[in-house]
């Protein structure tokens, strides 16, 4: 098997060009997935037998929450790859992931709070699921600020990657919090080894929004990664050649 394509992923100019080419397709796919999912979910899916139309906030809440976790995992993996194999582009990917993941976390917390008020009777409870998701947000903030806290950017990158790895234990805690403790939050509807607890008419729009959010994450990651690479490689020849006026 030819691994050239894989090894080239460590090369900043290659990654820059790849991100430039991928981004428009990812944005287009994201727009389609989110548009179809939201229209189908908000207008055509049947209301829930208990919660009525209020359950429809799931079409924004659950994908945000899933992405808050997968963005974190992506960031931690990229940091680990950079730490172990000294592949610098990994730090750039990790740096690009953090603010996107933090935004998804804020989205999940806010929509969850708006959902909790009418259904549970409270905006916020110090519940295991809610608290661990809040800790995830603080982890993101900590990682973003730690990266910028050093004069030497390389040290900041390493420190942020280590903190990211330490924080990865929070990801399974968030996922299993609803099983391990007496949580106010309900259990998993989809992410489990069983049939989803939802009929297809509700499920398909949800999966569509989820796919759209994933593509959107990929698209924003491409955009941010290009900016990261430009800043990090600003002394290199390929950028000077690219931006020099002929």
């Amino acid at each position, binding site marked *: 098997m030819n691994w050239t394509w894989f090894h080239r992923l460590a090369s900043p100019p290659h990654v820059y060009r790849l991100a430039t080419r991928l981004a428009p397709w990812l944005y287009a796919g994201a727009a389609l997935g989110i548009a179809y999912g939201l229209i189908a979910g908000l207008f055509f899916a049947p209301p829930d*037998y208990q919660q009525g139309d209020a*359950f429809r906030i799931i079409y924004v809440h659950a994908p945000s929450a899933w992405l808050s976790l997968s963005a974190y995992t992506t960031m931690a993996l990229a940091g*680990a790859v950079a730490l*172990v194999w000294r592949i610098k582009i990994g730090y750039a990917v990790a740096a690009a992931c953090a603010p996107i993941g933090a935004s998804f976390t804020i989205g999940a917390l806010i929509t969850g709070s708006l959902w909790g008020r009418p259904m549970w*009777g*409270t905006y916020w409870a110090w519940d295991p699921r809610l608290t661990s998701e809040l800790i995830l947000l603080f982890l993101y903030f900590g990682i973003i600020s730690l990266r910028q806290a050093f004069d030497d950017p390389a040290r900041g990158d390493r420190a942020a990657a280590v903190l990211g790895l*330490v924080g990865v234990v929070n990801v399974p805690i968030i996922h299993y919090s609803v099983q391990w403790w007496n949580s106010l939050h309900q259990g998993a509807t989809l992410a489990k080894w069983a049939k989803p607890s*939802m*009929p297809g008419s509700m499920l398909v729009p949800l999966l569509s929004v989820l796919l759209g959010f994933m593509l959107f994450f990929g698209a924003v990651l491409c955009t941010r990664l290009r900016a990261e690479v430009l800043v990090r490689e600003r002394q290199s020849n390929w950028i000077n050649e690219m931006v020099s006026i002929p």
Partner: protein
Amino acid sequence: MTPRRKRLLIVLGILGGVGASVALAVMASRENVMFYFDPSQIAAGQAPHDKRFRVGGMVVKGSVVKTSSQVHPDEIDVRFVLSDFQHEVPVKYSGVLPDLFREGQGVIAHGQLDANGTFLADEVLAKHDEKYMPPEVAGSLKKQHAGVMSGGAAPKSTAAESAAAGSAPMGAAQMNAVPTAPVSSNVPTT
């Protein structure tokens, strides 16, 4: 050992160390992190009388009595009985109830026990489960369930599904451990 291998081991070591310590902390905190008791534990006298804690259970059908409050005219006093299908505890609460509060629903009340064994709640939160379905489906499940009760031979999976649809104030696994859980007790009359 190559430097790369060493770095990999350091990273795995950090992960393993943090993971193990967090796992220990999680296991240690599982029992008491929420100050949570179910009606059986209260009946067994395990719940404190001078401390605030949470109690979770199902609102027993027909137990909800609402009267307008003497103190705050815009609020209502509510009395209801919480059950975990083995023991029951009476609850008194005044204030606004969440939308999902209804008979047969899983709720969590936060408050204190009085001397008579009544739980004086200052917060009542309703819990819903991870199942979502259109009202028609819930209705037909209920009809099938009625068939089961009257001796009809409904498919086994339907009964199991609707039993699992009962909102569990505790984890779903613990819920399944309750042997006398009535089937689809939380499907409301629509």
